[in-house]
């Protein structure tokens, strides 16, 4: 294992009863970046975060965070990390300032330092006016911002944010994105989980897509976008010979392939000229393609493309960066 990485996991496995939540997850996150673990509900994102944050033990596999083993050096890991999540972990009956002061004291600051740190964080997160109000009176967005501020009291080098914007309205999400972006600018490694492609694209310089407990794609936002272009040209082929020929020719442009139904999806920008050129390129004799359709890629398509059966998966894995 390398010491240069902020987070490194190999072969993480975890089952709850008969349900295999993580099925061999490998991750490598260099320090000082925002890394997004993107996946649908139930993909295993939260379980992965809990193992990396020492709150849960893997059944198999190993992980190092901030240079320390998450199982054998729990305390050292805990001193380097912090965790904020979709359930804002602050007391509704305490004020914002009291919550942050408490977290600062638990992080080992003196009472004086804790007070100063709380004041600084409240100002930085736009909560100075609400500092002396009970958190129970805060809006959802304010609670998440306070939660994030609370996770920064101990000056961690790695921050885990488990779906920090789930359930928030757009202005609150945008305010939170601003704050998360600022963190990475200060050299903190941010490990973000999200189910929003847009969020991962906006914040992260590296994205791993997780589904069914496995990482199905991994790369920069640009790499992933190539995989799941804005539009998709779906071709229904005349026979399996034509299917094979088109699949070979498509190479990296192939998004989906279903040999049973003889359909192939190709990445495209969707312009008429490009569609015409693609049809000419893939079917010069005008016999291989029986019909075609173009449709806009949605988030559902992204996950479908990355997780639809063995054909899709092997394709994605071969294009992994």
């Amino acid at each position, binding site marked *: 294992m390398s010491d240069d990485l902020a987070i490194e996991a190999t072969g993480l496995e975890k089952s709850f009863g008969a349900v295999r939540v993580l099925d061999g997850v490998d991750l490598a996150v260099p320090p000082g970046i925002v890394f997004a673990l993107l996946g649908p509900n139930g993909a295993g994102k939260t379980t992965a975060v*809990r193992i990396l*944050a*020492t*709150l*849960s*033990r893997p059944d198999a596999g190993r992980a190092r965070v901030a240079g320390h083993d998450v199982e054998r050096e*729990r*305390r050292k890991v*805990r*001193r380097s*990390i*912090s*965790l*904020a*999540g979709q*359930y*804002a*972990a*602050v*007391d509704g*009956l*305490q004020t914002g300032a*009291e919550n942050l002061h*408490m*977290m600062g*004291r*638990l*992080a080992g600051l003196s009472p004086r330092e804790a007070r100063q740190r709380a004041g600084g964080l409240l100002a930085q997160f736009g909560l100075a006016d609400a500092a002396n109000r*009970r958190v129970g009176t805060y809006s959802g967005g304010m609670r998440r911002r306070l939660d994030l501020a*609370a*996770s920064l009291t*101990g000056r961690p080098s790695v921050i885990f944010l488990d779906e920090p914007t789930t359930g928030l309205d757009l202005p609150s999400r945008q305010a939170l994105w601003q704050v998360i972006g600022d963190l990475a600018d200060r050299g903190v490694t941010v490990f973000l989980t999200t189910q929003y492609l847009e969020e991962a694209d906006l914040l992260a310089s590296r994205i791993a897509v997780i589904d069914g407990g496995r990482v199905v794609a991994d790369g920069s936002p640009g790499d992933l976008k190539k995989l799941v272009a804005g539009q998709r040209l779906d071709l229904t082929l005349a026979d399996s010979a034509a299917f094979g020929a088109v699949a070979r020719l498509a190479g990296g442009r192939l998004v989906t392939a279903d040999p049973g139904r003889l359909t192939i999806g190709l990445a495209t920008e969707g312009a008429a000229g490009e569609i015409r050129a693609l049809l000419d390129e893939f079917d010069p004799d005008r016999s291989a393609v029986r019909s075609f359709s173009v449709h806009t890629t949605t988030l559902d398509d992204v996950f479908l493309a990355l997780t639809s059966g063995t054909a899709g998966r092997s394709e994605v894995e071969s294009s992994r960066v």
Partner: protein
Amino acid sequence: MSDVLTMTARSFRLTRRQLDSLFTALALPVLLMLLFVGLFGGAIHTGTGTSYVTYVLPGILLLCAGYGAAITAVSVCQDMAGGIIDRFRSMDVPGPAILAGHIAASIARNIASTILVFGVACLIGFRPHASLPGWLAAAGLLLAFILAMSWLAAAYGLAVRTAEAANGFMFAVAFLPYASSAFVPVATMPGWIQGFARNQPITPVTQSLRGLLLGTPVGSAPWVALAWLGGILAASLVFSGVLFSRRTA
């Protein structure tokens, strides 16, 4: 140690701001005593030659320790169910420190309600005849009871998943004093329950408190009481340790 103090300060603050729970913890014991003494007391003859308020006060004090502990069970349960437990653990706050904050707040609440009940009891005719050692022994025994109940409540709060279930602790604990010598003499109960009533923890604690406060002989009751409370405390500490690590594994 500093973590324990921080967590205690937190629990005190949360307690002060949960006005409904605080009201329950402070006012309910007083109301119960007025109910027993004012409404039932006239019909109950304890055969001890003392007024009913003098007879029943120790039982009321134990009952209110049980109600106070139920609040502890609920707040421990809420901590475990909410996200804040993950934050504390990822900050490496030790489990005992998290629980100790709740215990400290529980003890403080109980001392406040005990003093309140005691004051009202004196107003309505409670006349103790205790020596100074008797007072100290009674206070110590009551404190031991409160401590044991608080840890038992913490263990119960760790064992159940919802605040509603945690609140059920109150009913379980509130039942025991009724089937003891706390409210009526055991000899007046049906024969089949007398064995249970004589040999359950509330009876020796009640008898010790009663004897110590009135300056009458207590025999071996305080030692039996301490053995019970020590056992409950030890079992609760072990259970809460096991449950905490299992809930957070």
